[in-house]
């Protein structure tokens, strides 16, 4: 059977996954050299979870993540050098070196950040999806969080609202089986996270997170569902991180065999094998991509290393927005590029809110059903 995927799509996915892999390996190396400090959570092993969904949505759809957040912006198209510079704490980073590894933001590419409080981004995503409905846009919001975040109150509070108000948001739980060093099954009454969606009358499904194409298909379908106004979707991407929770984690809580077994399931060779089998691409093409990506990552490290630390004047900026102050456009600021696709919103006079979140009859029916009025 012919593959439903184009060669371009497969090569793009491969390039992005390989970029994330190489980028993260070098980030790990730079951490050991003392160039990167603080907490540094690598994405190695989970590449398919970032890349598949990104190719299944539109570039202007919103995306946000937790603190394991290097993979998604790279998938979205962020500048690798500027992401690396942010990890290095340099002024040329996306957040001028103020955020570091856990807080990558690239608004130009509609990546709304990495968040350091477990589950803290879950309500934000619902709010962004709310804004889309409020403005009658057909945008979806994709929100990543880890398996352990599913035990936060924010998860439950938000799912209730998102489902009740049919917000166009796709939640992707990256279930890599461990919340830091604690296996999710040890702390969860229902360790299958997707099942929790049912409690809020919401669609919830498991997906093979080690397969880029399965992630692609699942999110493509979920996005169509959201855009049709049917409400939010929870996808549980079953994945695995090949490395510890952070650079300081020896991962003694799992066996070597377990890691070795999972490595056999590596999403990157898997995609390559698929493309080769389907005769959609040849080894030489993959080798060329690998060489290009290696050079790209080398250049990213060099760019970060040669970049200056942020100016001390930056200390007093970006805490409070001064009157008339514009937003900072990183690629314009750092690379001098003209950024044209910066988000624009309708003014308060242009905007017409036509959405009726809870029509009166509906509210009255609900009251009646609950026995509150007759």
């Amino acid at each position: 059977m012919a593959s439903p995927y184009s060669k371009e799509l497969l090569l793009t996915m491969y390039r992005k996954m390989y970029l994330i892999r190489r980028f993260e390996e070098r980030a790990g190396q730079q951490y050991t050299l003392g160039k990167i400090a603080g907490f540094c959570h690598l994405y190695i092993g989970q590449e398919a979870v970032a890349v598949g969904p990104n190719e299944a949505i539109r570039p202007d759809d919103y995306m946000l993540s937790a603190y394991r957040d290097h993979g998604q912006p790279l998938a979205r198209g962020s500048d690798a050098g500027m992401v690396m510079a942010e990890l290095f704490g340099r002024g040329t980073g996306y957040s001028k070196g103020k955020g570091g590894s856990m807080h990558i933001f690239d608004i130009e590419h509609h990546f709304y950040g990495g968040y350091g409080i477990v589950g803290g981004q879950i309500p934000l995503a619902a709010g962004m999806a709310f804004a889309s409905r409020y403005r009658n846009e057909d945008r979806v919001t994709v929100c990543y969080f880890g398996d352990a975040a599913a035990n936060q109150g924010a998860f439950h509070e938000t799912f209730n609202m998102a489902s009740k108000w049919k917000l166009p948001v796709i939640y992707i739980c990256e279930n890599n089986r461990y919340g830091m060093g604690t296996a999710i099954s040890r702390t969860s009454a229902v360790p299958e996270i997707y099942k929790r969606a049912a409690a809020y009358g919401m669609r919830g499904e498991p997906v093979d997170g080690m397969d880029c194409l399965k992630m692609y298909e699942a999110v493509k379908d979920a996005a169509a569902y959201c855009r049709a106004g049917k409400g939010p979707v929870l996808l549980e991407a079953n994945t695995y991180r090949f490395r510890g929770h952070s650079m300081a984690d020896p991962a003694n809580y799992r066996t070597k065999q377990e890691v070795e077994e999972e490595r056999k399931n590596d999403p990157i060779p898997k995609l390559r094998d698929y493309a080769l089998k389907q005769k959609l691409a040849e080894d030489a093409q993959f080798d060329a991509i690998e060489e290009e990506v290696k050079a790209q990552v080398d250049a990213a490290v060099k760019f970060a290393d040669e970049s200056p630390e942020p100016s001390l004047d930056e200390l007093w900026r970006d805490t409070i927005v001064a009157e008339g102050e514009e937003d900072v456009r990183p690629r314009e600021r750092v690379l001098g590029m003209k950024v044209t696709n910066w988000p624009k919103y309708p003014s308060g006079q242009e905007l017409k809110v036509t959405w009726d979140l809870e029509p009166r009859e509906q509210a009255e029916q609900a009251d009646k059903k609950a026995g509150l009025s007759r």
Partner: protein
Amino acid sequence: MPELMYREALNQALAEEMERDANVFLIGEEVGRYNGAFKVSQGLLDRFGSARIIDAPISELGFAGMSVGAAMVGLRPVVEMMTWNFAILAMDQIVNNAAKLRHMSGGQLRCPIVFRGPGGAGGRLSSQHSQALEANYAHFPGLKVIAPATPADAKGLLKSAIRDENPVIMFEGERLYALKGEVPEGEHVVPIGKADVKREGTDVTIITWSRMYYFCMEAAEQLAKEGISAEVLDLRTLRPLDEEAILASVRKTNRVVIVEEGWALAGVGASVVDIIQSKAFDDLDAPVERVTGLDVNMSYAANLENATQPDAPKIIAAVKKVLYREGA
């Protein structure tokens, strides 16, 4: 000028701003069909519809965070907290997200949002419902904190808050909602960060905000009968503090009493004292006195409740102390 209740002034500000800007929406518990737990949002659901006046589930963290998300992409949410005691559940979203988004994103994002609701003792509600929590929020860079005392300031500051490009925390008062005062109609905007001399005086400065303002005015009236001229400075904004106004008044009277409903330790008043001692030391003729809520949890019993809070007699005693007229 029409006389309005504090809650009516807030309602007017909300309605005017929502009329002016379709990006503004109000979300909170009981704001819609119930017309507001304290009737601040009365009539707004009928006027603006259910997408803009949103009855939220009892999920303070959830709807606070959802609103922050909406603000990140261009909307201007007003989040009503039924009381600030409940907002403690939402503090993670306010402090870890709203206050830090601009910074974490290196200036890419802004978060124009208002969190508002009543603070302070409501009256016979015991400890969980009787906290003046403004010092908590005044602590965080990235937030602005306002606490108007009069209906006119309530309207003017809420309008400023909705138009501000930053997260603004607004402390109203359960016992202020029914108070009446003159409120200018239409475009009445009070700038954030500006204190107001509500009563001029020469002998002592009484610095306060929110509900305590009324006790201070009562004390000032009584002191005037004894020939003591007290200036009452209503801070109105607690972050950023209006240092200029504070110092100007201290330089004029040389003696200061600071009155706040919350607890003394790490209170806003402590920071005001710090500004005074470091920038107007040579203008002080007496140590600064503070009148604060007692360092205990609020009780239900009427006598205990009253004794816990500042009142006019306590303020008068403090004024006499800084004037060295104790026992006079």
